[in-house]
């Protein structure tokens, strides 16, 4: 009897979650070395009161998800909690063992994942998954749970709340799924929800809707939340307090206003002031690349994804192509490179018309037009060293071998601010930013006139992304290379573009020099796009939602 009482949740105290001196370790297996122990979270204490929202922020590897999941007694990929206490509802849950964890997961603490699209089971209807935890823990009967789910679907402003539960996950858009997942977390009436980057994978225009829905749901249900993200501007909209983490240690904790306005630590300051690269717009010049009235389609002309697109970029300048997913930005890159031959229109480059198909282009055409991708890891052969990866275009295009090639590789490594020592490393031994630098060096090795950068900084932490952008700008000055910079991130655009093309549903809706495109009056879509970029201001979300002229496409 006494033991049962010890393990039962006690909801009388104001403190909901009290993590004390948490230490989490994992065993990693680096290639070619013995397995070693790494400390992921080191002596972190977190205290959360009922109904409050705490933002955990930091770059990848800061341990924020690990801390969030520790409140459910869960460790991803073999991490172990090796020290400290996790006191939830008045008892240390780490003493409860597996069955204790199962009782609190889905009941006292629920989880909202980054990618709802992957976190829902494709084989079951949404409703079945939403009410599963409520039924499992005996919170309510099936009928009651379904009723509550529908009320919650309304709460997070999903369309057709009565019937959306009958759908399968693949029948619902990403932004909507993220809201269904929020409703699912709320359904079993938990005390705490762990939001793990719930809007990071979404388009900026969809993110704002989901963010507003999450904020409203938290307020209306009075649930407490740990909100994990790397984006300070986002967390500033929902959190009462913010804790900044780095390398598994606490950097700073304070209320939201203090963190974003009066940061006390240098690192926090760097996070707050990120993304402000001064960049003087260059005057329009004769075009190096001109895309003329290009129309392209998938499936033999059935699905038109590019409609009559015309853009230009001058030598040594940057054209930014912005738009949400599905707007056709990456398809434009595929049409320029010849991977998807355009149905109509032409691509002129350096005074000549390029053959439409990649296979018909000369080696010189290929050399002068290089590409860098979003996912640096998958764009490199994991079994080749950095030296081989960078050296390959030198051999292929210029026929240089041996010492001459090694000298050029060393030069390139120097250009991307990495030492020659990296030549013998494998991609797996590099950080995300270093990998992207190697991809940049590989593109530069061909001495191209134009590089297409497809979301090259999207997968990186803000500070690292900033470094990459600065590098790209420096290289542009040195090598006089032009960029077509595809991105959905408007802050990036402001930092590096000379001209901007805004794409929406396959068409260019706004195009011109940066200063003109980013100056009012705006068309409805550009306005939506610009006003959806989170700003590091308290109350920005409410203001932005109130002044919107157009619904986001994900709705």
């Amino acid at each position, binding site marked *: 009897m006494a033991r049962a009482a010890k393990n039962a949740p006690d909801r009388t105290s104001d403190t909901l979650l009290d993590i004390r001196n948490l230490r989490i370790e994992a065993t990693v297996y680096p290639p070619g070395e013995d397995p070693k122990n790494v400390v992921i979270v080191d002596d972190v204490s977190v205290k959360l009161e009922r109904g409050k929202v705490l933002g955990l922020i930091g770059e990848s590897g800061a341990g924020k998800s690990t801390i969030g999941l520790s409140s459910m007694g869960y460790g*991803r990929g073999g991490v172990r909690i090796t020290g400290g206490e996790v006191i939830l509802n008045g008892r240390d849950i780490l003493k409860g063992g597996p069955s204790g964890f199962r009782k609190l997961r*889905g009941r006292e603490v629920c*989880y909202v994942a980054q990618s709802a699209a*992957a976190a*829902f089971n*494709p*084989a079951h209807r949404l409703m079945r998954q939403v009410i599963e935890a409520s039924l499992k823990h005996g919170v309510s009967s099936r009928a009651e749970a379904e009723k509550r789910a529908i009320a919650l679907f309304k709460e997070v402003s999903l369309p057709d709340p009565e019937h959306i539960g009958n759908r*399968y996950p693949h029948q619902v858009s990403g932004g909507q799924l993220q809201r269904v997942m929020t409703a699912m977390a709320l359904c079993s009436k938990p005390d705490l929800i762990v939001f793990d980057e719930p809007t990071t994978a979404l388009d900026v225009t969809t993110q704002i809707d989901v963010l507003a829905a999450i904020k409203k749901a938290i307020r209306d249900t009075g649930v407490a939340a740990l909100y994990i993200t790397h984006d300070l501007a986002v967390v500033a909209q929902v959190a009462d307090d913010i804790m900044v983490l780095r390398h598994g240690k606490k950097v700073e904790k304070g209320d939201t206003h203090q963190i974003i306005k009066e940061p006390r630590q240098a690192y926090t300051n760097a996070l707050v002031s990120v993304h402000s690269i001064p960049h003087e717009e260059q005057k329009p010049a004769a075009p190096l690349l001109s895309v003329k009235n290009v129309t392209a389609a998938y499936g033999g002309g059935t699905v038109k994804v590019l409609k009559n697109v015309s853009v230009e970029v001058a030598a040594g300048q940057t054209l930014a192509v912005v738009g949400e997913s599905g707007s056709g930005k990456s398809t434009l890159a595929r049409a320029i490179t010849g991977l998807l031959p355009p149905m109509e229109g032409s691509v002129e480059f350096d005074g000549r018309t390029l053959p439409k198909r990649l296979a018909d282009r000369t080696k010189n055409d290929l050399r002068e037009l290089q590409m860098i991708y979003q996912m640096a890891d998958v764009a490199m052969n994991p079994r080749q060293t950095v030296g081989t990866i960078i050296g390959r275009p030198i051999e292929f295009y210029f026929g240089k071998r041996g010492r001459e090639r090694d000298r050029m590789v060393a030069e390139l490594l120097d250009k991307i601010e990495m030492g020659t020592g990296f030549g013998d490393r494998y991609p797996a031994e590099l950080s995300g930013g270093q990998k992207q630098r190697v991809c940049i060096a590989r593109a530069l090795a061909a001495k191209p006139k134009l590089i297409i950068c497809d979301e090259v900084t999207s997968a990186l932490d803000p500070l690292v992304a900033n470094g990459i952008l600065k590098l790209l700008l420096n290289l542009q000055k040195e090598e006089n290379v032009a960029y077509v910079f595809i991105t959905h991130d408007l802050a990036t655009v402001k930092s590096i573009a000379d001209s901007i093309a805004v794409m929406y549903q396959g068409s260019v809706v706004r195009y011109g020099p940066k200063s003109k495109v980013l100056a009012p009056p705006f068309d409805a879509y550009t306005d939506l796009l610009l006003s959806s970029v989170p700003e590091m201001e308290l109350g920005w979300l409410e203001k932005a939602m109130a002044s919107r002229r157009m619904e986001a496409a994900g709705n």
Partner: protein
Amino acid sequence: MGAPLLKLVGKRIGLSIGLLFAVSVLIFVGTQILPGDVAQSILGQAATPEAVANLRAQLGLNDPAYVRYFHWLFGLLTGNLGTALSNGLPIGPAIAERLKNTLFLAFWAAAVSIPLSIILGLIAVRHKNGFIDKLISASTLAAISLPDFFIGYLLIYFVAVKLGWFTSVSTVYDGMPFLSRMVAIALPALTLTLVVLAQMMRMTRAAILNVMQSAYVETAELKGLSRSEIIWRHAFPNAVAPIINVVMLNLAYLVVGVVVIEVIFVYPGMGQYLVDHVAKRDVPVVQDCGLIFAAVYIGLNMLADIFSILSNPRLRHPK
């Protein structure tokens, strides 16, 4: 249920029918290029050239190959399987009797082995890398590592000869009571079960473990579900397609691959029938048996593909 789904399934069925025709050509050509002469082998070495020529004319062997092929094909499509050369009896009824026996044996072997292997696979996943998992893996692997005839003889030696529980000869005949029929096929059915168990069990285990890496399994875990609930409710439905495929392959083996087992247990099924008539160079019987085996194989693979298509919610419930 949408039109694209029906189209996919229709396509798959059409493909199977086309494939079956192609196989019929292959079988026909294959039996034609065998060395020797059917008439000669029926009559034996001592036959006079006149007798051989007469028989050739009588059997229609002088017609061009394509005429004989279409003659054969037309007969098959109208249910006439032709006449056996060796005894002059119609092939149809003989094959029907044998096929019934083969399907009877295959059915009971499948009825035991399929649920058993899937359940063992689920248990293995539940106790992943534990003692039970290793025991299941090791014993099923041991069973598949032994040649099927060797398992058959082992069972005959220990179960039939030493223990005397079942007879070593699985004779069945028309009008045999169900129960004694079951007793007769016990040993061959057990042998077949042991042979097919490992592959299906290991595929079940691998397919489910693969799905267990998914984010939605983590979601289920974070809802507080137990491991068994997660495996059964969240992992298994998404692992069905590969499991169905390997189940169908093994079903096909149970029908067309049992020649050796039937010979060992002297079971009057298709396999034995085929072997007998290959020895007698009875070409029409060999052709018919070959085509029936091919039809079973193609049909089961087609079913596997159709079930896989149907098990995909994206195709079943399009946007």
